């Protein structure tokens, strides 16, 4: 488990990594990463509950900042306040990783040159 917030840089993908923010700034940074992530995440709440889903909304300027997730199988979104978050795991597949135009162009070039 990678709980070291100081390692926030830009890894190729956050898939499989965990973050445990220890202050307000780290919490906001972590929530930005979660909002940008193109896969499901697991949010560990301070009260012990785990919420697994896709984060589609982030309202960091609300009086009480929050995110919204769609949970598989649930019709309505679930709201989670920043202040209730203990940790985050990028638990689902990163659906954007390796699917850029450049990745495709490289693969295509390789297959052209080998054929």
């Amino acid at each position, binding site marked *: 488990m990678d709980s070291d917030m100081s390692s926030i840089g830009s890894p190729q993908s956050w898939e499989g990594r965990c973050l445990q923010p220890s202050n307000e700034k780290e919490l906001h940074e972590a929530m930005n990463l979660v909002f940008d992530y193109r896969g499901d995440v697991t949010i560990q709440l301070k009260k012990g509950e785990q919420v697994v889903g896709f984060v589609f909304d982030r309202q960091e300027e609300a009086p009480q900042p929050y995110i*919204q997730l769609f949970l598989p199988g649930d019709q309505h979104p679930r709201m989670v306040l920043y202040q209730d978050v203990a940790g985050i795991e990028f638990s689902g597949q990163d659906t954007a990783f390796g699917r850029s*135009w450049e990745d495709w162009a490289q693969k295509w070039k390789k297959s052209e040159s080998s054929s």
Partner: protein
Amino acid sequence: MSVPVSQMYTVAHYALSQHLRGVKRYPLVMMLEPLFRCNLECAGCGKIQYPDHILNRRLTPEQCLAAADECGAPIVSIPGGEPLIHPEMPAIVEGLVRRKKYVYLCTNAILLERKLQDYTPSKYLTFSIHMDGLKEEHDHAVCRDGVYDVAVKAIKAALAKGFRVTTNTTLFNDAAPARVRRFFDEMMELGVEGMMISPGYSYEKAPDQHSFLSRERTHSLFAQLLAQRKRSWQFNQSPLFLEFLMGKREYECTPWGNPTYNIFGWQRPCYLLQDGYVSTFRELMEETEWERYGSGRHEQCRDCMVHCGYEASAVKDTFSSWGGFFGTVRATLFPNAV
């Protein structure tokens, strides 16, 4: 055939009446995304990069029609994902047509020929076919061989049944002007009503950051594409927007001009950026900090010249100043005048 007079009249009447009533911000084209799932996997497409449970979600016809009613824009564009996958798409289109909305159903055309029987030709319904260039360029762009031929066949079938058909083309920095001009010829020879062109943009969450066209490159590319324009080429978009792409005019972005509604709600601030969602159109219009967005104000807006931000600016110019109005008349009648 170009845009029907009734559509031009509807848009002109709508824009003028908003202007005369002193409405500062009004929507022109609602972007309705009833699902993100697609039957293609174009490289870099951020619309399909979601977990399965998100790709399986769809808006119902009731949600789509309520959003269109609330928004009030005279034109509704339905991009995706691939809208023709949605089993209730005919009901959504029918409901919009009943409301006299001009609907642009954007499709990659793979399913179009099979689905034509589910729709009725109408001046209110246009199939807007995703075509990114001649066969070689298009099949490369959509990462699958044969799609161009399928789309051409579907275009012919739709035209034969009396449907309005346009094409929409996104151009990236590898576009070869001479090839694109040949593509324009080919599309017009097919008999489409008009073409829509726009520079590409990569979505915030998508990783494709290197295909951006800088503003200068966009100006130069579009100036080459549209120089000495052939009379036969019809563009289904504002002539002032084309001049903007060519670097002949400056506009600020009008992100509220093409508001986007999808399975997450009303998207802030525009079709391209995802800076959060709200559940009503009124909240979108009244509570979004619009001044944060646009070139020079937001990092991700820096090089954007995409139609969903700037075409509404051009249309607004046409109806809010005599200069804009006469500029539109001149650009329509004499597109090659300097």
